């Protein structure tokens, strides 16, 4: 434990003089309770029945009577442990929350060094030391303390006490609210809490090691009757961040991964130079079948892209049936596409549809030498199915243009290249976790 917790260089609160240990009887349940910081504690929550007692006066007064079963804390009240070389005793326990996001705080006490806060947020521990000198506000949302710079990470939020047990140096009660904000520095946070009467600053440093064992406590568990632990509050988000990393850091890692993926996709997607062949096809005439290129695929499997282009026609389509035929095995891979373009005029005015270019991509084509064979046939579009006249356009349709002549078609075959769709999916998968983390952080700051 001592290896994990190092002495902080920040000044702590002025040490009080050693207090006396005093025992009182709970007016509610009759239990005998020790006041461990007598003279400093003003409120004591009975560890047996949960009633709140006023222990500031010699005659202990019942503030709130609460009938509940005795609770057992992970760090029992009165337990002693050593943190950062300092022997501390557990005085009190609070569960606090912001908008339902809860964390736990133990009030610790050393007769010579004063109070400390032990904060547990999502299972991570950190130690809070109350500051006796105010941090200095800098420009923007930064403060400096002991020569170190802290940046505000949360908007001010209302923190509420949900559960309380043990003794405290102020009259704490369930429902008590303060305005809390956290300033993040390197390796430590500053927590600022305000109410109508005062402002308290606490320096919070993460703790490693088995804190529960250091106090002779039990694993795991929470206080019976207390709300279930929930994600971080702003008093210390270091715990959550210590485990998951902050959203900006995750986005940075994601950006690096994206860059790496981009480079790898380009490096791995190389292929053979493209081959282009041109031929003519007659509208509503016989189809033409010809070999338009040869593709050699040296890798185990590769992408093949077939692009066909034509122009100077309207309201026609050209069927393009491609076959990749492996020379040695004669295995064939068939895929089809079409070039189509339509235009006309209707009540809304002029319209066009389709494209003079068509691209088909064939995934994972096995290694081999392939002939690219295409069967092309051109057709005029007719609403009623009959072949329209080449000279008189159909009502509402443009003339078929130069369709009386053969149409020039250009086919380009190429191997390699990356699928852009793959890249977008990868991007989504990479940035999903930091996105979720960011939403979580934003929700926590509300």
């Amino acid at each position, binding site marked *: 434990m001592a290896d994990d917790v190092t002495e902080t260089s920040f000044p702590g609160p002025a040490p009080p003089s050693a207090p006396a240990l005093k025992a009182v009887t709970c007016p509610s349940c009759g239990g005998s309770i020790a006041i461990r910081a007598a003279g400093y504690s003003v409120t004591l929550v009975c560890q047996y029945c949960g009633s709140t007692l006023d222990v500031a006066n010699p005659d202990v007064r019942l503030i709130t009577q609460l009938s509940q079963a005795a609770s057992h804390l992970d760090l029992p009240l009165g337990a002693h442990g050593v943190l950062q070389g300092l022997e501390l005793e557990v005085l009190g326990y609070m569960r606090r929350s912001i908008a339902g996001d809860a964390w736990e705080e133990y009030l610790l006490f050393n007769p010579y060094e004063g109070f400390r806060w032990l904060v547990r947020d999502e299972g991570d521990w950190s130690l809070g030391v109350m500051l006796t000198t105010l941090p200095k506000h800098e420009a923007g949302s930064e403060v400096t303390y002991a020569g170190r710079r802290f940046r505000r990470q949360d908007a001010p939020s209302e923190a509420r006490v949900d559960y309380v047990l043990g003794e405290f140096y102020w009259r704490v009660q369930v429902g008590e609210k303060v305005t809390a904000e956290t300033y993040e520095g390197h390796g430590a946070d500053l927590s600022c809490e305000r109410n109508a009467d005062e402002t308290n600053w606490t320096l919070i440093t993460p703790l490693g090691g088995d804190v529960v064992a250091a106090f002779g406590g039990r694993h795991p568990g929470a206080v019976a009757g207390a709300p279930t632990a929930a994600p971080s509050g702003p008093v210390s988000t270091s715990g959550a961040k210590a485990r998951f990393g902050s959203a900006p850091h995750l986005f940075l890692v994601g950006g690096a991964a994206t860059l790496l993926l981009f480079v790898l996709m380009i490096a791995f997607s190389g292929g053979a130079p493209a081959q282009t062949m041109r031929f003519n096809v007659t509208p509503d005439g016989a189809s033409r079948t010809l070999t338009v290129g040869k593709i050699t695929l040296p890798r185990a499997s590769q992408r093949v892209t077939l692009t066909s282009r034509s122009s100077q026609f309207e309201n026609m389509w050209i069927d393009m049936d491609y076959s990749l035929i492996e020379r040695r095995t004669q295995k064939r891979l068939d895929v089809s596409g079409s070039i189509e373009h339509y235009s006309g005029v209707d009540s809304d005015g002029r319209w066009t549809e389709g494209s003079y270019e068509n691209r088909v*991509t064939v*995934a994972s084509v096995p290694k081999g030498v392939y002939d690219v064979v295409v069967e092309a046939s051109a057709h005029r579009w007719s609403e009623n199915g009959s072949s329209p006249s080449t000279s008189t356009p159909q009502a509402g349709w443009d003339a078929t243009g130069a369709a009386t002549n053969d149409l020039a078609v250009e086919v380009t075959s190429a191997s390699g290249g990356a699928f852009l769709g793959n*890249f977008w999916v990868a991007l989504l998968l*990479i940035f999903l976790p930091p996105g979720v983390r960011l939403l979580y952080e934003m929700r926590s700051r509300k």
Partner: protein
Amino acid sequence: MQTGAILYLVWCGLVVTGFAVASSSGSSPFATAGRGAMHSVGFYGPMHK
């Protein structure tokens, strides 16, 4: 190092490796044809009318 950060690094490594390998082998569900491609039903003619 944080557990979550390590897990995220592993996740990024898997995604980058997986998609780099897919790119190398030319695999994609976005292809028109071939292994793993999502085939669409062919349709000819204008959608306008």
